[in-house]
């Protein structure tokens, strides 16, 4: 361990040396800009160094320390030769921190910064990475690279792993020396600090005072979504950081124009480097660029520098040959960090944007035209519709913080108390009365709208927006200056402080770890803190289940795995990233051969796959009703063939009654009591092994998009109701008294389940299939369906994974002679929205069910819930010894 710490020290010393060297050549005379410039250059140097060594297979402590040592020696020689110049640099740094005058305000701001940093330090030190996306595709890259000692395209079913990964390279820097993920969150923290100091620089560029600028930067730093992301290991903070860094450079350009101490070429170089790091981190950096371009053009036009800017790019105008080489080198380095991923993907997959498609004006340029996997589909064009829908989501999720924002980053959290209670009015004031701030706001909004229009509609995209909250803090700072009334500014500032305090309390615990989890993690030695010690629920698998797997597989054995394309795999590497994993691609046909040929004895299977083992699963499933493109949609799976059709009219913002009957010979769909389709389908409905009957829940098992709006009066019958009966129920509801004691006496013939949602999710049929609210589905006490006695309904937010789960009782699985009914009030009828029924499963998972055959052939022994061992004498002995 001591050796590792020494190697880490040498490596960090070298990167710091390179940073100081670059800083000396690229700094300005403006102190507030120098802080983010230094920070950015440090991130850049660490990333490029890690990348260059990683790509040549030297991503290991010894070669990295050796390279650092050689670099340090060369720098030492350089330093001795040019000592005088460095003295000037250091003295300029010293003046910045010269004799800070202590005032009450400065002390308060320093304390505020400190307590936020303490919170962050706590999370870095005690909690492992926990965000779903990082565990599926960001960090497996880091784990594989560090384990194998080189940066390469890993073999994985999680196709998003192939997306640009410059930020993951930076994260590797914090992992490689310790060979442990203890400090991995520092990558995000560095970007967070760059973002916050950049906001400070933006404010100084707008002529705010030092204290006010620091206050504004802290208001941004306290924004819940931003503060939580500081330790999330997600790469969005990096994009926000380089955006705000470029913004700071441009705001300063707007203010002072060109200056000899900070020539335009140097400024443009830094912006280009920042942009490259952004695009190499995540391609959406391009979508948020328009605001910066607008600001840049305005600054150039204001100071008549447009021509100068173009000329400054000419090699002749770069002052000296040494500088020309430096600039070219830095641009090349930045370019490599950006384009490596795209070129690699083009070479391997014939598509630089793999796994997403790339379209231009509707024409497919790269890709298959059907990016099939979760999270990989991209809109690839600008759409006003997306912009509008995403803006609506933004208001709901970020500004109004309607949902469980502070929890497991499912909604990536909101913008919190301050931005809502103080920021909004300040932005409106700024837009109306403050010319200078108005322009900055417009630049931010341009970036925002551009982004919202370029990405498809998904509230999950809220995570792209960390660059935006500074607009509220900056507008608020400007408001405090402009009001110039002490009795008004003091309460406003106090209000901002109170709101920020609430923000702070909300993110003290990132909302994922229970107190037991935290206790367990804190009791462990620092290098052993892994997710396997926390009982966090990920889809299908809990943290401790990974621990079970690791416990049973001897160290040094390879763990074979086969996953769905969006499953969590990272915890299996262990906190020291020493566990070897191998993705078994030829599954299930060549499973055993593939494992034998590689000497793999163990197979990890998440529950997503396991639940179908031994059962027969159709590629689509069961019977469901929904809304699609303004019509009623029906899905029915008969004898393993899926049928789906649309009919009738469903309007947004209006209650509509949907009913579906199936007799075994005919399927009939009704809209508002009228037959809209009658099709001769013969057969029996096929079900998964354990399908749940769900209402409104868009999950991985249901088609289309999540339902947004209200659903009421859902009923399921074990017989085909006549049109007359359907109309009767549609108009009057099912006549039941809601007292449980009377239910059975009045239950209509064949009623299996009935949900009125009058203040609860009880099944009023008396059969006990009570529903359970999932996620953010809420009961509304008013606005029920237009049926007598309907006092409420269930309201669905249009978010994946929300709805009502009515259980998996066999009674709910009706193969023929059934009627399914519901009143719906959709907010939108565009796209496909599931309403009610038993879900289906996509064809992708279907192949996994064939493992059943392998299991039946007595090839595997099941060791834990998710772990299987190939039957062989040696493995049998080991598993027998483990006593499980």
């Amino acid at each position: 361990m001591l050796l590792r710490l020494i190697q880490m020290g040498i490596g960090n010393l070298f990167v710091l040396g390179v940073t100081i060297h670059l800083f000396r050549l690229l700094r300005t005379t403006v102190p507030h800009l120098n802080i983010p410039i230094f920070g950015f250059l440090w991130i850049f140097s660490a990333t490029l160094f890690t990348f260059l060594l990683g790509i040549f297979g030297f991503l290991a402590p010894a070669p990295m320390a050796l390279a650092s040592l050689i670099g340090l020696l060369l720098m030492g020689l350089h330093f001795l030769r040019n000592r005088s110049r460095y003295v000037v640099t250091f003295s300029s740094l010293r003046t910045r921190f010269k004799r800070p005058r202590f005032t009450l305000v400065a002390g308060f701001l320093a304390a505020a910064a400190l307590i936020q940093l303490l919170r962050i330090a706590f999370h870095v030190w005690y909690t492992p990475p926990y965000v779903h996306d990082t565990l599926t595709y960001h960090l497996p890259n880091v784990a594989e690279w560090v384990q194998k000692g080189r940066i390469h395209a890993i073999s994985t079913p999680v196709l998003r792993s192939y997306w640009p990964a410059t930020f993951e390279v930076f994260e590797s820097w914090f992992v490689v020396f310790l060979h442990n993920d203890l400090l991995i969150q520092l990558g995000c923290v560095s970007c967070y600090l760059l973002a916050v100091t950049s906001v400070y620089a933006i404010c100084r560029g707008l002529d705010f005072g030092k204290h006010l600028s620091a206050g504004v930067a802290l208001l941004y730093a306290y924004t819940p979504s931003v503060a939580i992301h500081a330790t999330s290991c997600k790469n969005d903070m990096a994009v926000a950081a380089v955006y705000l860094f470029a913004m700071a450079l441009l705001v300063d350009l707007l203010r002072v124009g060109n200056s000899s101490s900070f020539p335009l070429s140097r400024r443009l170089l830094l912006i280009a480097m920042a942009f490259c790091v952004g695009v190499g981190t995540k391609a959406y950096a391009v979508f948020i660029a328009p605001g910066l371009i607008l600001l840049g053009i305005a600054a150039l036009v204001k100071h008549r520098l447009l021509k100068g800017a173009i000329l400054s790019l000419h090699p002749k105008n770069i002052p000296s040959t040494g500088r020309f080489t430096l600039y070219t080198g830095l641009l090349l380095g930045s370019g490599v960090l950006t384009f490596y991923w795209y070129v690699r993907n083009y070479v391997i997959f014939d598509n630089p944007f793999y796994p997403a498609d790339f379209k231009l004006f509707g024409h497919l340029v790269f890709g298959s035209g059907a990016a099939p996997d979760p999270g990989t589909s991209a809109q690839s064009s600008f759409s006003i519709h997306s912009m509008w829908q995403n803006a609506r989501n933004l208001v709901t999720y970020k500004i109004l913080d309607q949902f469980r924002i502070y929890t497991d980053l499912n909604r990536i959290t909101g913008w919190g108390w301050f931005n809502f209670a103080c920021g909004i009015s300040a932005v409106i004031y700024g837009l109306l009365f403050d010319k200078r701030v108005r322009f900055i706001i417009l630049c931010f909004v341009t970036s925002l709208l551009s982004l919202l229009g370029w990405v498809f509609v998904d509230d999950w995209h809220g995570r792209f927006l960390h660059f935006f909250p500074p607009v509220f803090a900056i507008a608020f700072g400007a408001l405090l200056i402009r009001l110039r009334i002490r009795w008004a500014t003091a309460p406003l500032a106090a209000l901002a402080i109170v709101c920020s305090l609430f923000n702070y309390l909300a993110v003290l615990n990132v909302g994922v770890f229970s107190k037991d989890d935290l206790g367990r993690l804190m009791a462990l030695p620092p290098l052993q803190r892994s997710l396997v010690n926390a009982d966090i629920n990920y889809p299908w698998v809990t943290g401790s289940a990974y621990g079970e797997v690791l416990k049973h597989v001897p160290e040094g054995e390879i763990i074979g795995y086969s996953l769905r394309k969006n499953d969590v795999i990272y915890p299996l590497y262990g906190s020291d990233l020493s566990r070897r994993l191998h993705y078994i691609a030829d599954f299930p046909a060549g499973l055993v051969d593939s494992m034998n040929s590689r000497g793999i004895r163990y197979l990890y299977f998440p529950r997503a796959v396991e639940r179908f083992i031994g059962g027969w699963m159709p590629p689509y499933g069961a019977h469901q009703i929904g809304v699609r493109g303004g019509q009623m949609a029906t899905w029915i799976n008969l004898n393993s063939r899926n049928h789906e059709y649309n009919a009738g009219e469903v309007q947004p913002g209006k209650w509509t009654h949907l009913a579906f009957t199936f007799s075994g010979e005919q399927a009939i769909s009704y809209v508002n009591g009228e037959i809209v389709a009658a099709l001769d389908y013969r057969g029996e409905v096929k079900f998964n092994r354990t399908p749940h009957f769900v209402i409104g829940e868009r999950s991985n098992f249901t088609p289309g998009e999540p339902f947004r709006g209200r659903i009421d009066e859902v009923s399921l019958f074990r017989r085909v109701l006549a049109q007359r009966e359907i109309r009767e129920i549609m108009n009057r509801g099912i006549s039941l008294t809601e007292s449980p004691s009377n239910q059975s006496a009045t239950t209509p013939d064949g009623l299996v389940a009935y949900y009125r949602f009058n203040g609860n999710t009880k099944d009023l049929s008396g059969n006990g299939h009570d529903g359970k609210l999932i996620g953010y589905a809420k009961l509304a006490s008013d606005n029920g369906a237009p049926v007598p006695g309907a006092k409420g309904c269930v309201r669905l937010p249009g978010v994946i994974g929300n709805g009502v789960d009515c259980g998996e009782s066999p009674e709910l699985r009706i193969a023929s002679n059934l009627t399914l009914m519901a009143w719906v009030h959709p907010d939108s009828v565009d796209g496909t929205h599931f309403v009610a029924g038993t879900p289906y499963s996509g064809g992708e998972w279907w192949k996994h069910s064939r493992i059943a055959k392998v299991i039946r052939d007595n090839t595997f022994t099941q060791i834990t819930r998710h772990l299987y061992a190939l039957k062989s004498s040696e493995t049998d002995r080991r598993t027998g010894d483990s006593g499980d």
Partner: protein
Amino acid sequence: MRLNLPRLIVGLGILAINLYLLKVYISTQAKLTFEFFLTLVNF
């Protein structure tokens, strides 16, 4: 400083709007914020 009526109105107006928004926020978010805080305090 002399009393400047327009400024007074704007200042009061903004303060009132902010307080109102805070109230709205409290009604929707306060429970959530303190839920987590309390979890931590218990710990």
